[in-house]
């Protein structure tokens, strides 16, 4: 009786989240799968069921959809590969730096690094557009004054990727830093005391105590950063317009174009779902790789 009552109360506590989860995630997701099996023109009331046709078109190399999808996917992959390692290691580096500051300053710097995260992407894009403008931007102005040639930051490769990754880092690295700071504070102090008695160096402390202790958090940061990077849209859309040519036209730009400019919700949904599947697979791989190294690490310790 008592347990039934308490389980009822706990169910009530879950309810608000559950309702939100259903309305804003599960229902749209299922609806998206449903749409992807139809030829769904937004303006047409005739929406014939076409089965897997939208998916087959994605993998037919002659179709327009397939080039839109795979070129976008490749550009997105490039961004993920460039940004995720930097997001993780810079986040960790900043966390270590801020944590080693005197307690009085720590709070200030934590805030400074975190503030950009609370700004919207359009503002970030405008700030960086003005900084990076080839002909009138602040950075090139200084470069020219120091006797260098101006750099076309947003209109040629590889600078366009460098600029987009830099803007993204500035924008979001503070979030990873906060998570790492918390993780670092959770590491039991007596481990460091013990290693100090053994005469370990700071580097040895970091490798043998800090890193293994924050491993679960590290995995969390890697996976969330990867997912966030897959979802890149605003920075290239606003900073390079997908250029030069279409070399920074990422997958989400293609999906949004297909959905709301071509009004083809069916094929756009199919693209979105394949993209989600790819993200899930990548996350699982990351999880497995991390777990297997953990086991190996554990064996090694024994």
């Amino acid at each position, binding site marked *: 009786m008592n347990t039934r009552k308490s389980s009822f109360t706990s169910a009530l506590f879950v309810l608000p989240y559950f309702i939100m989860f259903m309305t804003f995630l599960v229902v749209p997701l299922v609806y998206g799968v449903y749409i992807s099996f139809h030829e769904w023109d937004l303006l047409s009331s005739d929406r014939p069921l076409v089965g897997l046709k939208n998916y087959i078109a994605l993998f037919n190399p002659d179709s327009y959809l397939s080039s839109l999808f795979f070129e976008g996917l490749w550009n997105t992959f490039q961004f993920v590969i460039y940004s995720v390692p930097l997001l993780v290691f810079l986040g960790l580096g900043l966390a270590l730096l801020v944590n080693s500051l005197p307690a009085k300053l720590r709070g200030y710097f934590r805030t400074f690094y975190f503030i950009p995260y609370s700004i919207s992407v359009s503002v970030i894009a405008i700030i960086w557009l003005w900084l990076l403008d080839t002909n009138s931007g602040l950075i090139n102005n200084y470069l020219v004054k120091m006797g260098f040639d101006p750099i076309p930051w947003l209109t040629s490769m590889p600078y366009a990727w460098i600029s987009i990754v830099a803007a993204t880092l500035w924008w979001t690295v503070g979030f990873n830093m906060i998570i790492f700071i918390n993780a670092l504070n959770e590491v039991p102090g007596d481990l460091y005391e013990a290693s100090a008695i053994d005469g370990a160096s700071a580097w040895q402390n970091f490798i043998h105590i800090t890193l293994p202790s924050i491993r679960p958090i590290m995995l969390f940061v890697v996976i969330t950063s990867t997912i966030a990077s897959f979802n890149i849209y605003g920075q290239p859309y606003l900073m390079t*317009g*997908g*250029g030069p*040519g279409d070399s920074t036209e990422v997958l989400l730009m293609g999906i949004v*174009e297909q959905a709301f400019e071509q009004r083809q919700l069916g094929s756009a949904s199919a693209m979105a779902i394949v993209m989600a599947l790819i993200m899930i697979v990548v996350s699982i791989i990351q999880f497995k790789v991390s777990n297997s190294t953990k086991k190996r690490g554990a064996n090694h310790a024994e």
Partner: protein
Amino acid sequence: MSASKKWLPILFASLMVFVLAACSGGDSGDGGGSNGGDKITLWAPFSGPDGPKMKEIVDEYNDSQEDYNINLQIVPQSEYYKTVDLAVNGEKNMPEMMVMHGDQIISYANKDVLKNLGDIVGDTVEEDAYHEKGWENATVDGELYGVPLDIHPLMFYWNKDLFEEAGLDPDFPPTNREEFVEYAKKLTDKDKQQYGFVVPTLWPQQFIFPTIVSQNGGELYADGEAQFTSEPVQEALQFQLDLIQKHNVSPADVQQDGEVTLFVQGKNAMHLNGPWMMQQWEDSGINYGVAPVPQLGTEQEAVFANSHNFVIPESVSDEKVEGITDFLTYVSENGMAWAESGQAPAAKATYESDEFQEMKQQPEAAKQFDNAVFSPKVENWGQISDPLYNAINEVLLGQKDVQDALEDAQKQADERLQ
């Protein structure tokens, strides 16, 4: 402490009321005081400084009579067609009247979403009351689907101070290619990082490029096919590339909006953009002039334009249509407020009036009505022309050869047209 506990629910409740009131505000608040007439909802994408001007017209109309009550609802430009599409898709919450860009009409007309206005126009709405080009851009396959509000062609802007410094008459902008190139060279001073005409590599090429192609006597789309490799198209691209590489009047590697930034900073002497930019020039305090686009092409005068039109969804009843035509007739005769937003209304009663002719930018836009050319009337033109604008981008950034780039674009456009 107990006092604060008591206050909390009240605070929450009032917050909720506030939120709910804000949500429903769109319905009750916007109409500008109900006059008890039959309610007609109007959707418009005017979230800029043009919004209050449209509201002024609507409010004056509602005050002028008691039969109909127009309820103006503004949806931000970036969300506008998404909102329209989703309303069409859900087959509910459709407005009785919408403002729609001329180049968008074909997609909706082909899906039978819009009412054919052939019967109404000529009956209650007079054809003669508007510029003929306004009708042209609201027509698909000979059938009329919209009543024009304005036509917005590409405009030519120049910095008068820079003209004076270069020894040019600040009141006489160039009118043809020779003058344009000659002035641009005089206005360029690379030591001061100042340029005659900064060539955009992205938007607003979608207005500039078709303008030069038409001036070259060409078309981007004809006989059911893209014409990206035709001589007038190649020439238009080569001309812009020459401005950067041969005449040296533009910097290379211009990024998104780079030419706008330089114009506002007084380092770009001549600039092509839409009439909607006027407010930005006013705010920046530069001493600018505005005129019709010079003939940069080799054959004829022409200018690319788009337009705003009033359209009526298919489902709207005849009684409401009567109210709508009444409102449209009123707008055609009382459109001066819309001109104050910087646009040139397509109604003759407005653009031929003395008050209008005394304005700075608006009559310069109206002068170009006769030469206006519009987006090709083909569905998914955005998708078909996308490879062309990628090609223009790469060529003007010096990353691809003119001919190769246009041939690739043509190939991609052909695939998309199939």
